[in-house]
């Protein structure tokens, strides 16, 4: 069990399947009709099939793949949003999922109120957030808008606030699903710097991006997904070169 200590994430034979026809049966009326007519046929779709890999503590793994390869589904399985249809997921430590920044924001709430709300969604207490309030406001550069309801924010402002809250507490595992593509060039630089600074301290990072240059810059390892299957996993240079050839 000694190797388990250094593993931050481990997936064993994870399969995630969805029923594409589920929308046919979501009311009592249709359910009763379905019983009368006999079972409607199900069309199952495997978004992830039989995926196994492990990530060591402190590794920064880039996840590459075309649209529909299952990258986001994989992120959600790791984050615990989806319970896999079969297989197991092991995680060590606090996970900060940044699958969509500001999931849990309420548009009627002001920026300040959302700091506490989103903080508690991520599992931080009100006291924690009070201590880090100024830090968040400063990093997001929203000082004069912090008491304005979120519905009046631009999408860039929301993303900035979301990023500032999600990164204020150092997690053990950071899941980033194309979140660095938000904001203007200046904020992009700032957020990348922030992420890099979070990474020296043994933080494990799973990073989804279509920007290969960015993946090369941030990650030391990478994997390629294709149609729900893991087809390659290894050091960044080797994988990135292979992905470049695939997408030529």
């Amino acid at each position: 069990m000694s190797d388990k200590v250094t593993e931050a994430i481990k997936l064993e034979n994870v399969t995630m399947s969805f029923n594409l026809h589920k929308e046919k049966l979501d009311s009592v009326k249709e359910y009763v009709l379905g019983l009368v007519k006999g079972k409607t046929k199900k069309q199952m779709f495997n978004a992830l099939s039989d995926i196994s890999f492990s990530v060591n503590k402190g590794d920064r793994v880039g996840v590459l793949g075309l649209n529909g390869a299952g990258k986001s589904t994989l992120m959600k399985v790791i984050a615990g949003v989806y319970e896999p249809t079969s297989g197991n997921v092991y995680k060590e430590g606090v996970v900060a999922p940044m699958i969509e920044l500001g999931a849990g924001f309420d548009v009627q709430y002001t920026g300040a109120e959302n700091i506490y709300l989103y903080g508690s969604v991520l599992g931080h207490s009100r006291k924690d957030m009070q201590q880090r309030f100024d830090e968040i406001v400063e990093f997001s550069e929203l000082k004069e808008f912090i008491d304005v309801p979120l519905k009046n924010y631009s999408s860039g402002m929301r993303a900035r606030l979301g990023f500032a809250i999600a990164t204020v507490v150092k997690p053990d595992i950071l899941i980033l699903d194309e979140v660095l593509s938000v904001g203007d060039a200046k904020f992009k630089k700032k957020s990348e710097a922030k992420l890099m600074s979070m990474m020296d301290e043994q933080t494990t990072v799973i990073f989804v991006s279509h920007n290969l240059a960015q993946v090369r810059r941030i990650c030391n390892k990478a994997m390629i997904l294709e149609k729900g299957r893991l087809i390659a996993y290894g050091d960044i240079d080797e994988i990135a070169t292979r992905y470049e050839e695939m997408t030529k």
Partner: protein
Amino acid sequence: MTGIKELYQYRDLFCELVRKGIRLKYRRSYLGVVWSMIEPLLTMIVLTVVFGTLLGHHEKTFPVYILSGRLIYTLFSQSTTGALKSIRQNEGLIKKVFVPKLLYPLSSVAFNYVLFLISLVVLAGVSLVLGVYPTIKMLMAILPLIVLFFMSVGVGLILSTLGSFFRDLEYLWNVGLMLVMYASAIFYYPDAILESKVSWILSYNPLFCVISNFRSCIFGESMDMTMLGYSAGFAMTVLVVGYIIFEKNKNKFILHL
């Protein structure tokens, strides 16, 4: 029991969700909290005038009778409907972050319970004005109110589980609630029915048991222990059943949203 452990870890989020419900309800409304007191007061007046005249109830304390029944019914209907909708309402959150799903129906019931406690001020006011003075027995009202809380949570858990699979359950439940309202003796005296052949409509209705005991406490009478026991037993049963089916199905909710 993992569900309860997770709940404890996320207690801050629970408080935030309840707080959010209350804050947003009263934001941008001039009357604010006063509104949740005016609403039951107005309904009480209408019901008193209509049913007092219709059924010939001219007792001075009839409004207190109506208000106490109606407040409890409102809590039950609002909190169960809220729980039923809670999974769909928080769809955005459920699809993006991991949060114990038990939080959604639970915070919805808790939020409605807080509103209910605020509206008890109205009941106190009306009671004093109409000469129903507090007695030591009024303290016992806490028992039916506790039963009511667990009953709402239990029914809410069952409904929120079913509601995430069936979109139209909301409308069916509205019909169900209407039947419950008529079968809970809110704006009529129960005696005629309790003495008739169809007395089961009331005596086996756990919500009526709660309402009846709550009224007894308000009017300084003793509670009916059979009713208290029956309603408490019912509440515990739905709570356990609700918890089990919720925990068993919670991972499937996301596939149906």
